[in-house]
């Protein structure tokens, strides 16, 4: 294949990488407009009654309240604060005095790049950087104009600070100017401040949502309550795809507080006065199931099959030269197989949705990453037009991708309960077991990698077969799959900087299907591709007797942002300097979501041989860090999420049944699993902005595996590592 084709393939995959991670860039999505929460069109947006409502993102009331409406959802990543900072800096108001809320499902809140209303792909901050600053700047310009009129001076004689316009000895608050400003026409374009005049951006503020989250007043979906509301639990099928054959609800209905039992497409729902009665009612149900083909899923057998499949090439995802010829010319080859289990997101707040259906109108309260698609899905189930459905986004008790299902699985299920029961006000609550057993997992994957090295120890041939379920397949985003390639399965390999200089290469993908629903899990394809790439690079370095850092520096010499993150982390960690006895280091660097992250981890071995991570020194290049402490917090978070997945996490299936159910057997990291020391360093180079919510995750697993090799001379290639160590 020619270089031209190669490069266009890479470019496609770049776009796809962003997409896989968060979703699609709209121009690449056939039919994106149709997906874009069509119902939003005829809705009116926030009804604040504010005197001055210059745009969908910012209203100002006569009594001087600054109301901010978020186009994205706050799920821990900090955008409640970051988006507010953007407006505050341009508007000249105290960011701590703003009243912040989630916007409805409404077209003006569609993602500036992806074309639908979504929080994902670690994209909120960079994709809103212009829109939210402009919202503030436009309002400020109109307020100044209103003040100038009132004072009888020219706008240039006015200055603004702390929500007040001043000209000479005359002052007026924004609230006092609100009605007048509302009569003025906003200019098509407004100038934005010079970065040197930013007060908040780049310097940072404390999260605005902290007070509510430490005194118990922050409202999550689980906390939605109305008089007369019924709580519903659902008995789900024991096997994915199974259907209800018969229901005996007599005992369930006898439980005090149980009001109704209804069959829905995904199982049997019990509606009751409160959660406890609904849960007891569910436990008393007798349901026979038609299990269907899902009963055949066995994750151990499946992985064996995947490994076989990975020996053969699948659909080409990246290609250059002739890999067979290249391999035959190599002086040395290194081969490795990496395996990754299914993983559940397990956000702390179990999934839940509240729906009210009254007078042909529907209102939903839900922690969701995709309110527009949920709006469409609920409307379809309830036989309404999307504009008859209002979605109120509340705080998300964690998302990690689980609250962004293209299938709107949980919202649809709640709507089905409302439809089947005829009850006007229902809150559906999943138990932890429903969440852990409920599918929509990070797909299981196998990577089979073979690399040929030349006499200098540099890779000259790279063969890489990937096997795993497609996330896009069967969803509204299936049109994103091109020539058999779901970019979310290969992002991080097909576009790897390490492959750019390899003349003979072939990356391929098999996308087997089964009944287990799969979904993006914090950092999507990079959850496995970074491990395969960065562990292999380490294997190559050792195979040719080179220092893993020096080897990477050589391979990444034309990739300055990778190199900057790598070098900063290595320098701060004291790479090459002696360690305390029993401590070992590993390193990895990976680009995802347009940001570059390197980790140096320090581990020791527990008495049973398992891994204890003590320290992680991290460096991120995300371009401008709008809220630096928020960036640090997200990398800390990503590291802990990564440690959890690398050492502990696994979902397995036998006879179609998920073997885990709660935090006793779906093990996630606890305080003692956490590296006692985490240092985050931010590379400041003024480069293009990238995301921060996910990029901290991918390099964790390979850095740990590489440290384990330093400790033992053994390679860890099967996740989760601690299980692999105990099995060996």
């Amino acid at each position, binding site marked *: 294949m020619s270089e031209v084709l190669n490069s266009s393939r890479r470019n496609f995959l770049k776009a796809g990488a962003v997409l896989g991670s968060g979703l699609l860039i709209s121009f690449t999505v056939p039919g994106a407009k149709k997906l874009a929460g069509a119902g939003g069109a005829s809705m009116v947006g926030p009804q604040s009654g504010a005197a001055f409502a210059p745009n969908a993102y910012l209203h100002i009331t006569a009594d001087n309240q600054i109301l901010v409406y978020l186009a994205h959802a706050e799920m821990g990543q900090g955008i409640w604060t970051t988006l507010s900072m953007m407006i505050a800096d341009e508007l000249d108001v105290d960011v701590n005095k703003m009243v912040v809320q989630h916007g409805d499902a409404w077209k003006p809140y569609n993602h500036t790049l992806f074309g639908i209303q979504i929080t994902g792909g670690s994209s909120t901050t960079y994709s809103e950087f212009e829109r939210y600053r402009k919202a503030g700047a436009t309002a400020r310009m109109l307020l100044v104009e209103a003040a100038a009129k009132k004072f009888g001076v020219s706008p240039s004689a006015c200055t603004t600070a702390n929500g007040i316009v001043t000209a000479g000895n005359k002052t007026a608050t924004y609230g006092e100017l609100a009605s007048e400003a509302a009569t003025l026409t906003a200019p098509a374009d407004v100038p934005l401040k010079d970065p040197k005049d930013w007060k908040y951006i780049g310097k940072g503020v*404390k999260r605005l949502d902290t007070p509510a989250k*430490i*005194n118990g007043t*922050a409202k999550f979906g689980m906390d939605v309550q109305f008089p007369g509301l019924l709580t519903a639990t659902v008995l789900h099928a024991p096997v994915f795809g199974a259907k209800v054959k018969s229901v005996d609800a007599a005992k369930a209905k006898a439980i005090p507080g149980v009001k109704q039992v209804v069959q829905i497409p995904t199982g049997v729902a019990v509606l009751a006065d409160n959660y406890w009665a609904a849960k007891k009612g569910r436990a008393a149900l007798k349901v026979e199931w038609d299990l269907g083909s899902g009963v055949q899923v066995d994750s151990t057998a499946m992985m064996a099959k995947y490994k076989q499949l990975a020996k053969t090439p699948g659909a080409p995802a990246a290609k250059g030269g002739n890999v067979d010829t290249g391999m035959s010319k190599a002086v040395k080859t290194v081969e490795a197989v990496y395996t990754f289990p299914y993983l559940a997101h*397990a956000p702390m*707040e179990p999934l839940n949705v509240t729906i009210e259906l009254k007078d042909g109108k529907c209102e939903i309260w839900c922690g969701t990453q995709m309110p527009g698609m949920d709006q469409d899905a609920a409307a379809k189930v309830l036989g309404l037009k999307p504009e008859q459905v209002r979605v109120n986004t509340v705080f998300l008790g964690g998302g990690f991708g689980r609250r962004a299902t293209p299938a709107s699985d949980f919202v649809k299920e709640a709507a089905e309960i409302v439809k089947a029961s005829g009850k006007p006000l229902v809150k559906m609550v999943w138990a932890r077991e429903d969440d852990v057993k409920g599918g929509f997992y990070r797909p299981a994957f196998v990577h089979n990698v073979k690399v040929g090295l030349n006499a200098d120890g540099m890779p000259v041939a790279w063969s890489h077969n990937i096997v795993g379920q497609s996330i896009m397949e069967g969803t509204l985003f299936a049109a994103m799959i091109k020539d058999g390639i779901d970019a979310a399965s290969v992002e991080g390999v097909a576009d790897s900087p390490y492959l750019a200089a390899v003349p003979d290469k072939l990356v391929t993908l098999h996308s087997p299907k089964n009944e287990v629903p799969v979904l993006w899990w914090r950092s999507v394809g990079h959850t496995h591709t970074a491990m395969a790439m960065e562990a292999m690079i380490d294997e190559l370095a050792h195979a040719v007797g080179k220092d893993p850092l020096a080897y990477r520096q050589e391979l990444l010499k034309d990739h300055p942002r990778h190199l900057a993150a790598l070098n900063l982390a290595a320098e701060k960690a004291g790479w090459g300097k002696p360690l305390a006895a029993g401590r070992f280091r590993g390193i990895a660097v990976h680009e995802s979501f347009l940001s570059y992250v390197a980790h140096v981890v320090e581990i020791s071995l527990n008495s049973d041989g398992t891994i204890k991570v003590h320290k992680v020194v991290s460096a991120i290049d995300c371009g401008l860090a709008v809220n630096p*402490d928020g960036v640090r917090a997200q990398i800390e978070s990503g*590291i802990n999420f990564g440690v959890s997945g690398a050492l502990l996490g696994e979902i397995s299936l036998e006879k179609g049944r998920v073997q885990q159910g*709660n935090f006793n057997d779906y093990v996630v990291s606890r*305080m003692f699993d956490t590296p006692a020391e985490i240092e985050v360093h931010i590379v400041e180079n003024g480069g293009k902005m990238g995301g921060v919510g996910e990029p901290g995750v991918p390099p964790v697993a390979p850095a740990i595996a590489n440290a384990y090799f330093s400790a033992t001379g053994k390679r860890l290639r099967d996740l989760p590592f601690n299980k692999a160590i105990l099995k060996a």
Partner: protein
Amino acid sequence: MAKYSIQVNGTRHDVEALEDMPLLWVIRDIIGLKGTKFGCGKALCGACTVHLDDVAVRSCSLPVSAVGEGKITTIEGLSEKGDHPMQQAWENYVVPQCGYCQTGQIMNAVALLKSNPHPSDQQIEEAMQGNLCRCGTYNRIKAAIVSVASPEKAPALVVPERNHSSK
């Protein structure tokens, strides 16, 4: 169904509930205090932590019939204005991300210091091991607890001040 009279945050509540109904659901669904969270239902995650006579308990697994005359404190009753020293420490270290587990974390941390005012790092880890956080805020949780228990060992704050006003 049976009748119970329980004391929550200094107020007596007469409630009618199934006798195996966990305290969590009495607090949330009957009394209507939503700051105490449901995470696992099996005392595995700590999101539902409240105090029973100053001792941290997992309210999701404590039947209302077992509460008796014990005094229950929830996050709403911890302080008048959300300014208990532990809450202030949480604010200082900007601990919460999604925030769902944090009220349980705070209640557990407060109970820890009541029984052991100056815990070692290891004692903190042991006492907090039952409180999960999927956002992985453990490092800041630990820093916040240390800052209250042993101010001289408080990790340096690298976070910005809350109260700066716009120019």
